[in-house]
């Protein structure tokens, strides 16, 4: 295909500047005014310890002067100054105490930091007591209680200073110093070799032209490659066996984090026309554990709202963002498709996710890094992650009944390619009919760029996402099926429906997670199902002659995983 110069220049071009021709803009231009306040705050936070120390020293100096200059105009001025500084010290002490207890209660930070806060707080309280004692002593020199107060305050201050001095000795940087860090230290030993440093590759000998087994020329020495493979295996086999612990058994961080929780494997629905079951299955990409999946789901406490989300792989921490959306929607469902309503509704899940990134994720990763003797992530890294943003598809369904009617009404909302399929058993035809397909209606609707909900604030200049709503007042009857699935399984189901194939009915008999895992493995191996995170919510409404529970009666999940919802 020849490309003429005229055609060539039709493309939009912006000349590349030569490095020497470029001009570095002034700092004020590179940093918009809005960032100045942020810069000052960041600088203040980073130097907080310095400011605290400066305030304490100032208080001590002024207190000493008050003591030494008992009368005169300077005495009054210094006394007033001391009162101001003591008040500031009291506020700071209170702030330190709150921060300290918050740290201890959340178990999210190092003990070292907690002790430092405690030491500083104690020192401030000691100075406060000392100063009050001195102040009152000025007016009533005969009062023994004030002198005692000053002495006790001085004693606390000295003890606090001693504690602050001892902390770096007792807890040097990098030492595993609390339960969380010990857990992280154990867990990281179980992380896959690909995440940690693998065995180093040996230097390769000069290559030779040798034929391989198929007679093809293989210019790299097969022997050296094989030797390298053996070396790699040998070195891998020499990796120390991780110690057994519950955390190691789980293997990954955040396994007990609420944002990583998944719905119960099975719940029973009771509605006016009968009962139904809700089953949730998830199989991560490849043979990864479910905690590494970027799919997640949530079911409300009353069982009326269910959501399925698929975090986008190219975005930051998408599992937690997807969970923030799903978990918030099922308890506070947005039943409106307006862009502004979505913006308003998103404020809370965005705040939940940002808070989690700043307070939970960053400290946990830093505890991991500390245990691995890796450099900690800077405090503003959380802001970088948040600024980079996260994204997820969304699919939600609301179920309800009318007293006079049998059956279950439902409506669904979606962004992206997580899909819902409703099936009805046609007795006359003796086959399943797909009565609803939402939001993707054909295989062409599945692209590699699905719609998504972003954690970033959407620019007014760009098209904003909006929820799509299914047709209203959909109704399912006893014996019907509603399936919610993320893109891999949704595409597979879509093709099954288009080609009128029956294999999808195998899903109806799945009761245990192991059965689902095996089914997914089989479909992936056959090339029918894309090797991607695969999750499924299956709502089965049953009547007296239902096939739903019949063929697999007695194979239910344990009672621990079964919940009953009545509405």
């Amino acid at each position: 295909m020849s490309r003429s110069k005229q055609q060539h220049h039709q493309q939009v071009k912006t000349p590349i500047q030569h490095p020497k021709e470029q001009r570095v803009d002034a700092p004020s231009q590179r940093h918009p005014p809005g960032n100045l306040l942020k810069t000052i705050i960041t600088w203040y936070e980073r130097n907080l310890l310095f400011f605290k120390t400066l305030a304490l020293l100032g208080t001590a100096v002024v207190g000493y002067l008050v003591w030494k200059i008992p009368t005169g105009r300077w005495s009054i001025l210094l006394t007033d100054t001391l009162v101001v500084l003591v008040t500031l010290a009291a506020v700071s002490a209170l702030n330190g105490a709150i921060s300290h207890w918050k740290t201890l209660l959340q178990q999210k930070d190092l003990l070292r930091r907690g002790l430092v806060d405690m030491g500083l707080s104690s020192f401030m309280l000691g100075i406060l007591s000392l100063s009050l004692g001195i102040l009152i002593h000025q007016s009533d020199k005969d009062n023994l209680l004030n002198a005692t107060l000053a002495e006790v305050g001085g004693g606390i201050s000295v003890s606090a200073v001693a504690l602050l001095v001892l902390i770096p000795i007792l807890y040097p940087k990098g030492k595993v110093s609390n339960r969380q860090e010990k857990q992280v230290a154990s867990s990281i030993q179980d992380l896959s070799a690909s995440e940690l440093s693998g065995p180093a590759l040996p230097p390769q000998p000069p290559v030779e032209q040798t034929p391989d087994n198929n007679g093809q020329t293989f210019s790299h020495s097969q022997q050296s490659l094989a030797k390298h493979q053996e070396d790699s295996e040998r070195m891998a086999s020499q990796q120390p066996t991780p110690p057994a612990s519950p955390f190691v058994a789980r293997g990954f961080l955040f396994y007990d984090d609420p944002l990583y929780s998944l719905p119960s494997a099975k719940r029973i629905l009771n509605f006016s026309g009968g009962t139904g079951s809700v089953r949730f299955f998830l199989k991560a990409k490849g043979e990864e554990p479910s905690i590494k999946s970027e799919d997640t789901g949530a079911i409300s406490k009353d069982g009326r709202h269910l959501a399925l989300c698929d975090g986008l792989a190219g975005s930051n921490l998408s599992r937690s963002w997807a969970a923030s959306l799903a978990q918030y929607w099922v308890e506070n469902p947005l039943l409106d498709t307006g862009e502004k309503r979505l913006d308003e509704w998103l404020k809370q899940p965005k705040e939940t996710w940002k808070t989690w990134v700043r307070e939970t994720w960053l400290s946990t990763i830093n505890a991991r890094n500390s245990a691995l003797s890796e450099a900690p992530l800077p405090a503003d890294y959380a802001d970088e992650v948040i600024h980079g943003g996260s994204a997820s598809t969304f699919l939600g369904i609301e179920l309800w009944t009318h007293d006079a009617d049998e059956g279950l009404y439902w409506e669904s909302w979606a962004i992206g390619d997580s899909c819902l399929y409703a099936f009805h058993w046609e007795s006359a035809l003796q086959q399943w009919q797909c009565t609803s397909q939402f939001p993707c209606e054909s295989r062409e609707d599945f692209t590699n760029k699905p719609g998504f909900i972003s954690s970033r604030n959407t620019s007014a200049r760009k098209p904003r996402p909006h929820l799509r709503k299914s047709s209203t007042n959909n109704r399912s009857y006893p014996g019907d099926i509603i399936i919610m699935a993320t893109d891999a399984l949704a595409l597979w189901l879509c093709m099954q429906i288009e080609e009128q194939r029956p294999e999808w009915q195998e899903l109806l008999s799945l009761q245990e997670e192991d059965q689902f895992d095996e089914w997914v493995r089989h479909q992936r191996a056959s090339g029918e199902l894309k090797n991607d995170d695969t999750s499924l919510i299956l709502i089965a409404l049953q009547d007296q002659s239902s096939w739903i529970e019949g063929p697999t009666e007695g194979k239910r999940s344990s009672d621990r995983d079964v919940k009953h919802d009545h509405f």
Partner: protein
Amino acid sequence: MSETIKGYSYTKCQSATATLNVLLNTVLDNAGINDQTGKRKHRCDILVLGYGDSVTPLLGTVEEPLALPDLPRHSLGRQIMHIARRDPVTRLLSTEEVTGPYWIKEVADSKRTETGKAIAKAYEAVGRWLLADNTRKDTRPAPVIINITDAQDNGSENPVQKAIELRQLSTTDGHALFFNCHLGTTGTDGLTFPATLNQVDDLFELALQHIAPTLPMGTITRSSQPTEDEKQLRLEQICARQLFEMSSPMPDIMLRNARRTFGLQIEAGARGFIYNADAQDLINFLEWGSLQDRFITTASREEVG
């Protein structure tokens, strides 16, 4: 690569380096953060080789692909990048100045161009990479190798033979894909994703007609002895044919992406080869070849810090 790129005031080497650095930044940005490690997700391994008289790794010091999560700590410093992006929805351009890490510095002081040796090194690295982990062959997409050159190959190895060997490497996803981008200073028009060798030859026949003396009635004649310009064109034709034969045919999904990125009608069976490219073509080529979502349209850099 030390020659000035056509239409611009900087060299092909500078253009390629700036674009590669921006591309690496883009690959990092598109990887997302791994919640378990705090690093970027391990979505690919990258190896960058530079070649002239010899072949040298440009990312780190070893000739092994670097895991994407480890890329940040191998950067040489930070740079200011001027990047124009085309909004995928509105198609409007917006330019922004961003600061980010860079990994590659331009080096163009060699007398030879050992293309064959460079391809052989790539072959060895990809081969080792496949064998280093038994699961890679079954789970990873086919490796993609992109060669950016000025096509003045005068090395000691046969690059076509080496390229054919390289393309034999495979995962269950398919054979390794080898694409070639020729940065041009020549007088011919460009050639984007040709499907046949005839298309390559036609390009040069057309160029030869332009430099040949023309008789009044419009017929073309040639002297018995070729002129210097004709000799030069014939040499360039040999290079272009060589690059065409080295290049892999494009898979369907890449074909669709190429049509979208370049805005051209590209026929099925087209090779991953672009001849006599300018800076814009190079950026499009890398964007397309690495299947990035973002549309970077220009890139330049200067060091900071």
